């Protein structure tokens, strides 16, 4: 079994940058990122990007993400910076005490290259780049649509994301984050379409694709449909729901590789490397029929919920797991 340590990205800004960027940009809705920033703001984000990449590399993670520090609107970012999208009221980000600007699609979702530019800049610092995007179902779920026929919207978002991925520089993996598959599960018919939309995005890259889900477990039917998508691994949140996620894998199997969300991205309690290793073994013992090509070990959620010191400690713990696996392998 190959253990690969990684994260789903979306890191907190370093404390210096919280202050610097709030000074440069302001605190209000209209001060958030628009995708055309330059000068001091772009320079500050460049410094943050480098720092986040160095943090991950020094911690010893196997795959490093760009960090998505510019993503003021969290997963809604790729739409929030798009020319044919208007950002309106502040809405709650799932059931968290976090908010993002409602991205309202008012025109055609053509490729923007925004995330590709971030990855180009990141690839200067690493050979182990992991791209991160919202999955099409979650991005459509987070957005409002005033342009497409309602039935066409999911496909349009998938097409848009696929276009973004095609512009990416070389990357080892693509993590597609799909919390909405759990939080706002698709109903009959829509579940199949959600998987087809994921397929469309995954087909745009030759890299390994991991669809990461969190905040609980997928409904059985949604899980079954997701297995039909041509992706390499599905990610399961073993922090918020151990039993149902285990059940899904035991009952329906999973892909040849798996991502295990084993560290809590929303709690400052830092898991020791021993605890993480025990959890990997514990899950392995309960899935005797499964021999995974790759086991991605990650935090369950994005990391921006954490203060800077604790996020770094989590990275260090993950890095330790990587180091131990290399020794024992």
């Amino acid at each position, binding site marked *: 079994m190959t253990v690969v340590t990684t994260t789903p990205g979306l890191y*907190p*800004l370093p*404390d210096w940058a*919280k202050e610097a*960027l*709030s000074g440069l*940009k*302001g*605190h*209000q*809705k209209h*001060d*958030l990122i628009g995708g055309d920033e330059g000068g001091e703001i772009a320079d500050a984000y460049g410094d943050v990007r480098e720092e986040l990449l160095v943090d991950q590399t020094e911690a010893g993670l196997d795959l490093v993400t760009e960090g998505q520090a510019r993503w*003021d609107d969290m997963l809604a970012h790729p739409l929030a910076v798009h020319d044919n999208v208007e950002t309106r009221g*502040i809405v*709650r*980000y799932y*059931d*968290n*005490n*976090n*908010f*993002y600007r409602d991205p309202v699609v008012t025109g055609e979702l053509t490729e923007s290259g925004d995330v590709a530019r971030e990855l180009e800049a990141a690839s200067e610092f690493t050979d182990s780049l992991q791209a991160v995007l919202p999955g099409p179902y979650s991005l459509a779920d987070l957005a409002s649509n005033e342009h497409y026929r309602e039935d066409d919207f999911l496909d349009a978002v998938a097409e848009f994301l696929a276009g973004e991925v095609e512009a990416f520089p070389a990357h080892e993996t693509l993590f597609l984050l799909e919390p909405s598959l759990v939080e706002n599960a698709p109903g009959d018919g829509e579940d199949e379409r959600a998987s087809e939309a994921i397929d469309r995005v995954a087909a745009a890259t030759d890299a390994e694709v991991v669809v990461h889900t969190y905040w609980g477990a997928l409904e059985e039917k949604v899980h079954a449909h997701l297995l039909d998508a041509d992706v390499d691994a599905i990610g399961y949140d073993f922090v918020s729901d151990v039993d149902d996620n285990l059940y899904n894998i035991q009952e329906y199997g999973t892909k040849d590789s798996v991502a295990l969300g084993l560290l809590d991205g*929303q*709690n*400052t*309690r830092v898991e020791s490397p021993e605890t993480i290793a025990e959890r990997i073994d514990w899950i392995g013992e309960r899935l005797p029929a499964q021999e995974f090509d790759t086991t991605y070990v990650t935090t369950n959620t994005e990391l*921006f*919920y*954490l*203060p*800077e*010191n*604790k996020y770094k400690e989590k990275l260090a713990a993950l890095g330790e797991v990587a180091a131990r696996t290399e020794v024992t392998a």
Partner: protein
Amino acid sequence: MKRDQFRRPDHANETFIMTTVVGSYPKPKWLHRVRDLWEDEESDFDDENWDEATDDAARVITDEHERAGLDVLVDGEVRRNEMVEFFAHRIEGYEFNGPVKVWGHNYFDKPSVTREVAYDESWLVDEYEFAAELTDRPVKVPITGPYTLANWSFNEAYETEEELVYDLADLVNEEIEKLVDAGARYIQIDEPALATTPDDHAIVGEALERIAEDIHEDVYLGLHVCYGDYSRIYPEILDYPVDEYDLELANGDYEQLDVFTDHEFTGNLALGVTDVHVAEVESVAEIKENIKKGLEVVPADRLTISPDCGLKLLPRDVAYGKMANMVQAAREIEAEIDRGEIEVSRTPASAD
């Protein structure tokens, strides 16, 4: 009736629609500068200076509330920085690790519970006693509820968040007993986290039971919940042992009003009638229309009006304008009810 204790002796109308604010208010600009000085390790600005400055700010804000004509005042929470942070600093068991994002470039110092929580120093008694001395009007005490104190913290110490909530409820209960002993008669428990995790409404209910148990019979307990889908917690919240529910509805243009009319509202309603995220002062006429929305839910003698939420993010003149117009609107509506120009039912408050 519990509500009658808040009616001013010189209240001109027979009908009484209570006017108040949720709690926080824009701090005087100079207080921000003073805080910077106080937090600057190289400055010789000490705690005594800080106490004097916050006393002065409380005087200013209490006076501003009085001038606006509010029936029930608050000191503007001038001593508090943030609704969880302030309390966590005073509770044993909490630690701070640094700021975390709420939205955009707005952060708060989200604390971690690293061991069993315990009551340490008094939280609000000094604040209440000082404000109560400044005015002959009733002073409301907003206090962050145990569910929000738990849910907006990182839980490193307790097996479940529910256990933490109940331990915190015992501490909130202890503080409220002290406030009641000091003379406080209007306590508002702020539970905005309930709106983010509606599935936990039973946990909030159990925590409130612990708080309300054996409370002095004259104490009027309010619950403030904002920015969420109320249909996910209503009508279940009507079982809570509180007298009043303070809700934010102006921000959503009363789209959620149906939630409260489809099922009879049996408590007293504190209705948000001005939007705290709009930096313009709504006209008296506009606020009067909003008050009438409240009258669709409860009769006038069970209606309190307030801004949707704390006013602290607004420019101070706008905050004042919203309060003053709100009070004028309430008094005009009362007079119109007295003259029979607005038809309303009159029923005693069932929660009293």
